């Protein structure tokens, strides 16, 4: 793994921190988390947004979901199917979910292990954000990377200098995941 490429302050997901919080917060709070996640799921099914979808994993654990973003038109990701995993902490929605790209992706704000640099998934998280708003943010990030704080500096540079070459990198890196 190439750690020197990372912005160490913004890089890694907060899974460990979240799980640590949850041990102190436990009680029967899972009920509240479950209720909230069910409400989100219902909302996603009743009023889906174009190009995004999400569903709890088949294992019956409501705390882990798989989501899909279809690459928006007029971006280098057009038509690509991008899969993500959501891991919700026990104190969700007071801590953000840990979101990772499962599909290999070449993008200034995502690293090669699929980690995401997005402020609303870190210190700017608020309890009214949700699966849908996170997916919409990521979808727009595909077309408008935040090159001010890149996780993948080479991609950031290439995005600015050579869009054609950038797209070649995207396609070279992309690999469709098998349906689980």
């Amino acid at each position, binding site marked *: *793994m190439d*750690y*020197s490429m990372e912005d*160490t302050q913004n*890089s*890694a*997901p*907060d*899974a*460990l*921190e979240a799980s*640590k*919080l949850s041990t*102190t*917060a436990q*009680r029967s*709070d899972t009920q*509240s988390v479950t*209720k*909230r996640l069910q*409400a*989100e799921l*219902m*909302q996603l099914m009743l009023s889906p947004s174009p190009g995004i979808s999400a569903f709890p994993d088949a294992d019956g654990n409501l705390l882990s979901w798989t989501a899909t973003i279809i690459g928006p038109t007029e971006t280098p990701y057009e038509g690509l199917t991008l899969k993500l995993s959501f891991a919700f902490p026990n*104190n969700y*929605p*007071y*801590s953000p979910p840990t979101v990772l790209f499962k599909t290999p992706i070449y993008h200034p704000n995502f690293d090669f292990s699929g980690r995401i640099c997005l402020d609303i998934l870190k*210190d*700017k*998280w*608020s*309890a*009214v954000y*949700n699966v849908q708003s996170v997916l919409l943010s990521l979808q727009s990030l595909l077309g408008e990377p935040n090159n001010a704080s890149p996780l993948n500096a080479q991609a950031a540079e290439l995005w600015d200098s050579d869009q054609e070459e950038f797209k070649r990198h995207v396609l070279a890196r992309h690999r469709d995941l098998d349906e689980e």
Partner: protein
Amino acid sequence: MSNMNALSADEMERFQKLSNTYEPDVQGPLVSRKEPTQSVALEYANADHALSAKTNALAITHPEYRIMKGDGNCGWRAVAFGYFETLFALRDPMRIQREITRFKSLEMLLKQVGHSEHLYEIFTEATEDLFTQTISAIQGGAGDESFLVDAFNNEFASSAVITHFRLLTSSWMRLNPHRYQAFLSLPLEQYCASQIDPLKTEIDEVGLQALVDGVIEGAGFGVEILYLDRSEGDAVTPHQLSPHSPSGATIRLLYRPGHYDLLYPADPNVNMEPIVNYQYAMTSDYSNWNEGPLGFDVDSSLMAIPNLMADPSFAMGTPMSPMPSVSPTPTSPFRMSPQQEMYQSPMQTHAPIPSIPVSSPPPPIPPPSAAPPPMTTLPSRSSDGPQIRLNPLVMKPNLSRSLPVTTPFKNSPYNQAHFQNSDFEPIHWEPHDRR
């Protein structure tokens, strides 16, 4: 960067893990029980003079405080807790019902700025649950607010209520941008998204004002901040966030740079008892009077003022109507009414102790009318309560904690102003030759 490259990937990974799991080591519960403010004074005993003087004075005017955990939510938590605590202290279930209704109508704010119900309902439900708990605590005759302390120490419930208050505040601000934008260095929308909505972002002054305006003021509660800093002066600097508190209930915050706690003024019970004038007269064998700490015998016949019964205000029976039983006292001890000036911290009185006005609280004694009948027997204590007025510091049932420190006692060893007098010699108490 060259240094970092010198580390192996394994080491980097280990450091990254450590860094990810790092949490500032903040000890203690989210909300503590009431603690003596004296411990704040002790913290600053060896600090800057301004701080030690202010904290010593604070320990007298506000003998108790409640510590909020410094986890980034302390200001929000202090106001939310103070709100529920004040509501509980009023012990009026109907009023809580009105608050439940008011909070229901506040949901409009959330809707108007586009929050969807399925996302915020867990927060509004948590708040409503706390209202319900408060009503049952009142109806069940709960002695103190410990159920609230417990509720706020449940991290999930606590987060939900704080999130609810945060969302109401940011929605209120978004709907009233003209009131706040001028005070912000960034666009209001961005300010709300980065400084108000995210859990664990500390409240700042604009946010606090908006919280008071949008959420608290509708309850009729005042909010006062007492600033403890190094500025000139011998007392903490008070600041009223709400111009008026019709119900008389006030939430008091102690602010030290970067942190909020809750403060409780000298005597929450002072207004539950009839106001009596200590300097005026002690009429009789007032049995509630705690003689223990007094350095002299309370001989009621000696202390009675002969013309007292000629005073029409006493003849009326109940000269003052008792205030509603509000826990936080309605008037701030810092308000500049003449009555309050003399109650201010004794620490302020180094030099001009003798110049303290001798009478100010009571209605002036009317000139003695013709010849009042000489008092031959002590007036019996009326069932309306004792007819003396103690200053708020004296009224404490437990006098040992808020000892008489004003005029009648200015020579008393309990007057802490003496601590600053180099010539002061304390009286030595000899247990055996007392009386």
